């Protein structure tokens, strides 16, 4: 896996990008945070500068990230994950080198059933049964992929990690777009409810809200990192207080 390595601080941040993105998706954050932190931003298989070699599951992606941590000799790291990166982050959460998670519009929760989705699936099944052309079915994300990545994609989106949440011991910060349609806020509420040490912040904007609020998001990450790395007495730990909301 290709990995961007910027900044030379003692403390490390690991940025996991979303589906269809690359290490460059986090460039605005990395450029600001690299003054005091060492920032690692890998490209996942089939994204950016890393080619896809075989069909991967979420766990394989996580293994790739683990290898990077080994290679770079990182002892303590905070993971900043967006969307699909959130799945990998949830898979990685068992690793003891990971001291905290910042999940921005993360995926991985089982989506709610909806009438729209039911009919879309019905249409696909009917077409398949009637041996019609099914190439125009599927999400735009899916249609844009190579055949190999298509299989990976199917594997990934059918992995639901709701069960992992209760086992997460690290402090977690959720940053969510209020108008997010890909991973709606109910997923954040579910995570907030089930993760032991979790804070949630809702920002205005959609699935890429962190790009609209680069300065604020950086401050949240910095504050979170201070709490995690230096163990502030009144750090982010504990469950007191409701959601912080930025209009």
């Amino acid at each position, binding site marked *: 896996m290709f990995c961007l390595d910027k900044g030379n601080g003692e403390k490390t941040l690991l940025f996991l990008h979303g589906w269809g993105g690359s290490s460059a998706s986090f460039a605005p954050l990395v450029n600001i945070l690299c003054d*005091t932190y060492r920032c690692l931003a890998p490209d996942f298989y089939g994204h950016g500068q890393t080619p896809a070699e075989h069909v991967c599951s979420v766990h394989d992606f996580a293994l790739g990230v683990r290898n990077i941590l080994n290679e770079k000799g990182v002892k303590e790291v905070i993971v900043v994950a967006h969307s699909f990166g959130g799945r990998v982050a949830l898979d990685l959460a068992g690793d003891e080198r990971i001291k905290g998670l910042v999940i921005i519009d993360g995926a991985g929760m089982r989506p709610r059933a909806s009438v729209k989705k039911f009919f879309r699936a019905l249409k696909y099944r009917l077409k398949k049964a009637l041996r019609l052309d099914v190439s125009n079915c599927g999400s735009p994300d899916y249609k844009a992929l190579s055949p190999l990545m298509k299989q990976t994609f199917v594997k990934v989106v059918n992995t639901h990690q709701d069960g992992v949440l209760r086992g997460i011991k690290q402090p977690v910060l959720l940053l969510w777009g209020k108008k997010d349609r890909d991973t709606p806020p109910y997923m954040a509420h579910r995570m907030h409810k089930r993760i032991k040490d979790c804070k949630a912040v809702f920002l205005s904007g959609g699935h890429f809200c962190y790009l609209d609020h680069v300065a604020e998001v950086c*401050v949240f990450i*910095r*504050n979170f990192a201070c*709490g995690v790395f230096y163990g*502030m007495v009144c*750090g*982010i730990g504990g469950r007191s*207080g409701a959601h*912080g909301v930025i209009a």
Partner: protein
Amino acid sequence: MNIAVIYGGDSCERDVSVITAVQTMKLLNKFAYRVYPVLLGEHGGMFMPAHADDIRTYIGEKADVGEAVFFKGKTLCKSGRFMRRLAEIDCALLCTHGGAGENGALQGFLELCGIPYTSPGVEASAICMNKLTSKSVFAALGVNVLPAVKVRKGERERAFEYARGQGYPLMVKPARQGSSIGIDMAADEEQLRKALDVAFEFDGTALVERALTDFTEINCACVKYGQEVLVSSPERPVCWREFLTFEDKYLRGGKMSAPGREFPANLPAPQREYIQKSALKVYSELEMKGVVRFDFLLDNASGEVYLNEANTIPGSLGNYLWTDKGIDGCRLADMMIEQALAESAAQKPAYRSDILEVFGSGSANACKIGRGHL
């Protein structure tokens, strides 16, 4: 935890203070701290603006915005027809620059209220505020300073006398102003007269010192955390607030007009060491706390380093001086607050005498009869 961010005031640097406060309020951890902005009024009083972390709040005709508040001991209260308690303040984060906010007056007020604060104490603040006092204190500590003479408003003759002995160019500064306000260079008698006029506009006392013709300004900050004092890498600022006038910058051409700064400054090892050592010395000898920025002047011709002044509450709280040590603004604010709380929590020795009882028991002179002579 409730944090009062105090800023504003009546000084010339009020606007800089507002900027520092807005920046700092944005950096504070919203989960850990509840921020109470306290804007010191232009003519006294305290105010709490509604959208304090938005700079647009302060742009407009009216300088003092928000509702009037006051401190009742540690409690911040809203005044008006009915008093309302807002919060018990755990720590005050001071973002005031110049004037009563930096000269120890505000620090003394907070000490009386029993609120821990994140700047050096009354004594150190007062010393560093006055450029003449601070010069003599720094010199007494064995730190290089440029010799200066004190000139009061009515005693202009002293300045001209000093000029005859010292020769030109000379630097004229008001004794108690920050941010290079009212500072001017004088190359002859006519200019000296003008420079003194300007300086006396701002303060009744001015100082006249030898001006360095070819120099570099170097900044270095210290912050106390736990038992140790961290010293930052020296920085060479290149910015508009230099006490160079516009013509100076223009004449020097591209060299000075380059935006930004050099950090860490590219300095020879002996000078670098001297700067860090003297900053540490002054900081620890004056028993300061919080971030203090020391401004040094490096004479390019001779290589001598002079301590120019100490800023007990630097702009942006000096958070740009720590990035190479892995400390960002958020961490710095946390450190300052933690330190302020730790120092105020350190037990003060309790001393009780029985003089009142003795006096109350009807003795004619308690002090003579009480234990020992007081």
